[in-house]
């Protein structure tokens, strides 16, 4: 089984420096591209490979790039940004790539920047990833010293600057237009689209924001081709491998690179070692806090974009949070809504006002003072804060675990009302 993204990552060992990275084939994709491919050819290759964004939305990466103005009349500077602001609760996959092989990300970024002819690139890194920051700073420095960044890279005429930006903590910064505002020193509120960032992004210039895992795939696609990348998907409609994670009361929580489309059962039972002794699986969020619950009846669902959607949820980030039978679903969802209410940027009213209300309703249920009407009110909020009613995807994302909890664990909500206490305590 091929694991292109993590084959040289050995947790506990320091990551490769530039020399070790180059000795194992690193930066050969960059040399190949600079010598023999046009930006358009790189775009087409990535589009053909079927690589979809690994940050959660799952949009074809090559297609996303294709909207960037190209040619002599295109506005400059153009920007390429690595979204390393991993902050979706339950998600810890990009940390592995950032700490495990920083040069892989840097090479991926230079390739993406070449494909869109960007002049400046940023890594927007989460503040909490202190080790990653240190490693990235060192690696960027090494890449500059080796002539892989800066002016006239490897004599190709292509130039690229790279900066590391560490954030100061806000979930909204993961939304790409909010991220742009944060980079410009503003409050991280989302921007109206259109214009899309590809046309008017950072400082009003064409900009691409790609997730870390997405970018890390690029050197391997360039080296091995689109067909190879598709074949990694092991019978799935989606190409490539994926970093999957499992957390919660399982025997072996962790993060693994596996072929796209591995089943939930394989993930939980094989890789995560099954549930801890004495606990049963009650439900799980397949791809982070803003994805709908699935339950034990979905164990054979394939973890790819289409299959998880068909099951009624989203692949999201592919890092799963498991809820066991000793954990109260109302308390679980209250924790999620507390997070979303706190992290709402306050820009639009349904999200700013609705989420704290949802949080309070859940708290009153959990504390035993909730009523049947409160449960109904929660149900209504899943509509009011749903898609189309808010400025960005934060509130609709927050409603996903709530609506599915009301669907699958309704009895638990009703028991809180009937007993006037939390039955799990």
């Amino acid at each position: 089984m091929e694991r292109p993204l993590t084959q040289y990552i050995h947790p506990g060992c320091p990551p490769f420096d530039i020399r070790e990275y180059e000795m194992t084939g690193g930066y050969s994709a960059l040399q190949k591209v600079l010598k023999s491919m046009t930006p358009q050819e790189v775009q087409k290759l990535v589009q053909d490979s079927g690589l979809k964004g690994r940050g959660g939305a799952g949009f074809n990466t090559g297609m996303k790039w294709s909207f960037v103005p190209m040619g002599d009349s295109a506005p400059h500077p153009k920007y390429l940004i690595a979204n390393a602001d991993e902050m979706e609760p339950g998600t810890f996959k990009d940390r592995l790539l950032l700490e495990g092989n920083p040069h892989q990300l840097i090479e991926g970024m230079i390739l993406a920047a070449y494909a869109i002819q960007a002049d400046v690139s940023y890594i927007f890194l989460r503040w909490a990833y202190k080790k990653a920051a240190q490693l990235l700073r060192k690696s960027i420095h090494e890449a500059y010293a080796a002539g892989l960044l800066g002016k006239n890279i490897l004599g190709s005429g292509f130039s690229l600057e790279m900066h590391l930006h560490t954030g100061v903590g806000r979930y909204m910064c993961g939304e790409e237009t909010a991220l742009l505002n944060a980079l410009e020193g503003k409050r991280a509120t989302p921007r109206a689209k259109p214009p899309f960032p590809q046309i008017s992004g950072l400082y009003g210039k064409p900009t691409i924001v790609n997730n870390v895992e997405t970018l890390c795939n690029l050197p391997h696609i360039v080296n091995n081709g689109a067909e190879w990348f598709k074949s990694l998907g092991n019978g799935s409609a989606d190409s490539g491998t994926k970093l999957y994670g499992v957390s919660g009361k399982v025997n072996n929580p962790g993060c693994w690179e596996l072929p796209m489309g591995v089943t939930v059962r394989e993930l939980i039972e094989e890789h995560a070692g099954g549930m801890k002794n004495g606990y049963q699986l009650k439900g799980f969020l397949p791809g982070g806090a803003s994805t709908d619950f699935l339950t034990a009846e979905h164990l054979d669902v394939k973890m790819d974009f289409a299959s998880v959607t068909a099951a009624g949820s989203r692949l999201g980030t592919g890092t799963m949070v498991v809820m066991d039978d000793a954990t109260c679903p109302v308390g679980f969802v209250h924790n999620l809504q507390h997070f979303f209410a706190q992290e709402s940027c306050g820009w639009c009213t349904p999200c700013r006002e609705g989420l704290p209300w949802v949080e309070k309703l859940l708290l009153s249920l959990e504390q035993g003072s909730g009523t049947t009407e409160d449960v109904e009110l929660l149900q209504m909020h899943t509509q009011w804060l749903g898609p189309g009613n808010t400025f960005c995807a934060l509130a609709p994302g927050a409603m996903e675990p709530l609506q599915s909890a009301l669907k699958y664990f309704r009895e638990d909500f009703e028991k809180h009302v009937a007993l006037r206490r939390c039955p799990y305590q």
Partner: protein
Amino acid sequence: MITQKINKDNITTSGDTAHYTEGLQEEQYLTDLERQAIDHEVALVPYKSAAVIEALKIVQHHRRWISDDSLNAIAAYLQMSPAEVDSVATFYNLIFRKPVGRHVILVCDSISCYVMKYGDIYKALQEKLHIKFGETTSDQCYTLLPNCCLGCCDHAPAMMIDNDLYKDVTVDMLDRILQKYS
């Protein structure tokens, strides 16, 4: 031109940037080290205000938190109004607008840590330090804060103290961890 010494009464939300940008006193508030670091960041962006988050980080690094005086000084230095700077400073979780202790303990309270009972860790910390979330010990040693997902869900519960990450935290570990910070 207003050159009065800045103090807490001098915060205004008038949006009138002129009298701040002209005041030399405010600029003198920042140390050479802080100004050099801010100048370095300003050189990387197309206009000064784009460096405001970096400036807040720099001043906080030197002074632990952003006081009203610091805020006014940054505003003057970057030719922004204090209200603009405060709107940014108060937006982000890790810019502190109130004094914090020498060490900031960030306990992850997000979902995986909830399932793995971060509540027990919080309860033990409360008992040991006699403070709740948002409070600082009377000796100014620790500030205790809740924090969103630290991206360490496979080793929950997790917490950070200053720049150090602690994984698979148990109540028994806390005394030994806290000893490292004084």
